[in-house]
C-alpha cells in the first residue's frame, strides 16, 4: 500500500469517526469510551503478525507475547464490560394498556 493510499484512508476514517461519534448522546459517553477502548484493542492484529512471524528471535517473541496478551485482555475486557453496561440502560416499562374507548 502506498503512503498516499494510507493517508487517504487516515483522513476519511477521521472524518467518518468525527461524524458518527458526534451523534453519540452524553448519556452513552462511558459505553462509548469503553467501546472505543475495545476497538483500539485491534492492535492485537499487529501483535499476532509480529509474534506469528517471529523467526525465533527472543526480543520479537517476548514483545509479541506480551503484546498479544495485552491486546486480548483489551479486546475481550472492553467488549464484555461495554455489553454489561449497555444492558442496564432501559426505558421506563410501558404502563399496562387500558381498554380503549
Amino acid at each position, binding site marked *: 500500500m502506498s503512503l498516499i493510499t494510507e493517508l487517504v484512508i487516515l483522513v476519511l476514517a477521521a472524518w*467518518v469517526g468525527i461524524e458518527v461519534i458526534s451523534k453519540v448522546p452524553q448519556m452513552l459517553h462511558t459505553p*462509548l469510551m469503553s467501546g472505543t477502548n475495545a476497538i483500539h*484493542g485491534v*492492535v492485537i492484529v499487529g501483535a499476532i503478525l*509480529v509474534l*506469528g512471524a517471529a523467526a525465533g528471535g527472543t526480543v520479537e517473541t517476548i514483545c509479541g507475547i*506480551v503484546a*498479544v496478551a*495485552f491486546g486480548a485482555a483489551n479486546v475481550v475486557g472492553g467488549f464484555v464490560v*461495554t455489553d454489561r453496561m449497555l444492558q442496564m440502560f432501559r426505558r421506563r416499562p410501558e404502563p399496562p394498556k387500558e381498554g380503549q374507548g
Partner: protein
Amino acid sequence: MTRADVIQIAYLIAAFCFILGLRWLSSPRTARKGNLVAALGMLIAIIATLVDGRVVGYTWIAIAAFVGGSIGALVARRVQMTAMPQLVALLNGLGGGAAALIAISEYHVAGAAGEARLGAVIAVSVMFSTIVGSISFAGSLVAFGKLQELLPGRPITWPAQKALNGVGAIAVLGLAAYASLNIQDPLLWVAAGLALLLGVSAVLPIGGADMPVVIAFLNACTGLAAAATGFALNNSLLIIAGVLVGASGTLLTQLMSKAMNRSVASVLFGAFGGGGGSSSGVSATGETLPVLEISVADLAAQLVYARRVMIVPGYGLAVAQAQHPVRELADLLIERGVSVAFAIHPVAGRMPGHMNVLLAEADVPYDQLLEMEEANPDFPQTDIVLVIGANDVVNPAARDDENSPLYGMPILEVDNAENVIVFKRSMASGFAGVENMLFHDPKTRMLFGDARKSLTQLVQDVQAV
C-alpha cells in the same frame, strides 16, 4: 482471488462493523447491538490475521491470547459499576502498551535484518507508536492508581515540574530521531523508558475531578498509537480503527474541557484545584454566612407534597454508593404522583457519562435522565432540587462572579428552583477549593451526613408519611 485479497476484504468488513457499531451507539435502543457488531468485526479481523501467510507459529499466540483474554473477561465480569473509570483507564493502558511493544519489535527486526537506518515513513510511525503508546500506558496506569485510590487523588507536584517535563519531551524526541538514523536496540529502549517516565509525571499532577478529560485524552493517545502501528505494519485496518478511536477520544476531550470552561492545555498542565477543604463560610465583608439545616423527617414531608423534584447527582453519590437508595426514593415519589427527573452535568463524576452508568445500574430508566441543556429551563418550575454529592457543577459563582476560578463554566442552575436541598458530608469546599454561595442562599437547606444513610432514612420516612 489471492489469499491477500481475501484478508483485505475481511479487514474491510471489520472496519465496516466498527463504524456501524459506533453509529448504533447513538441511541440506547441500538447501542447493545452496536457493541456486538463491533465485537463481531474484531473476531473477523483476528481470524483473517491468523490465516495470513506470514503467520507461521501458533503456540505462543494461543497461549498469550488465552491468558490475556481470560483475565480481561474475568475482570470485566467481576468489576463493580462504581469502579468503571479505573477499568477503562486500565484497558486503555494495555492497548497503548501493546502498540508500543509492536513498534519496538519492528525496530528490532529492522536492526536484525542489517538495516542501518529506518525509512522516513517507518521511522515516524515506529517512533510515534513507541512514544505515544508508552506515555499512554504509564499515564493510564497512574490514572488507574488515582481512581482506585492506590495513589492520592489530589494533584502531586514538585519543583520545576513543567520545565522537567519539557526537557524530558525534547530528550525523547531527540533520542527517537537519533535512533531512527542509527539502529541500535538499546536506544529505543531508553526512549521508551523516558516516555514511560513522562507519562507518569504528566498525569501525577492532575487532580481527581479533571480525570474525565485525562481519560478521554489517553484514549485518543492509544487510538493514534494504534494507527501509527498500522503505518509501520502497512495494515489498513489498524489505521482505520486507530483513527476512529483517536477521533472519539479527541472529541470527548474537547467536550469535557468545554464543560469545565478550561482549555485542554490548562487541564493537562495546570495542576488545578484540590487546595483542601479550606472553606471558611466568610463573606467578602468578613462576617460568617448563615447555613440553614433541614431534618430528614421535614424533607420527607416536603417531598411528598411537591409537584416536581429534580435530583442532581455528583461524584459524592458514587463514593457513598447511594445510587440504589436514590432510585428507591425516586420510585416512591413517582408512585405518589410527584414528577421526578435527574439532571446530569457533563463532567459529573470521574469519566464522561459516569453518572448515567451508575444510575442505569440502579435501574433508573434513561428517560428520567436529563442533560444540562434540558434540565436548566426546567429549574424555575421545580419545587425541590436534591443536590447529592455535587458541588462545583451547581456553584452560581461560575455564572455570577467574574473573579471566581470557576467563572464561565456552564452549571446546572439549581438556584432557579423554589427550594434546594444539599446532601453533604461537611462544609468542606468542592474540588476546585472554591466557596459555594449556593449553600448560603436563603432558599437552600443543608442535610449533613453520609448520603447513603440520609437517603435510606429518607426512603423510610417517605413511606411513613
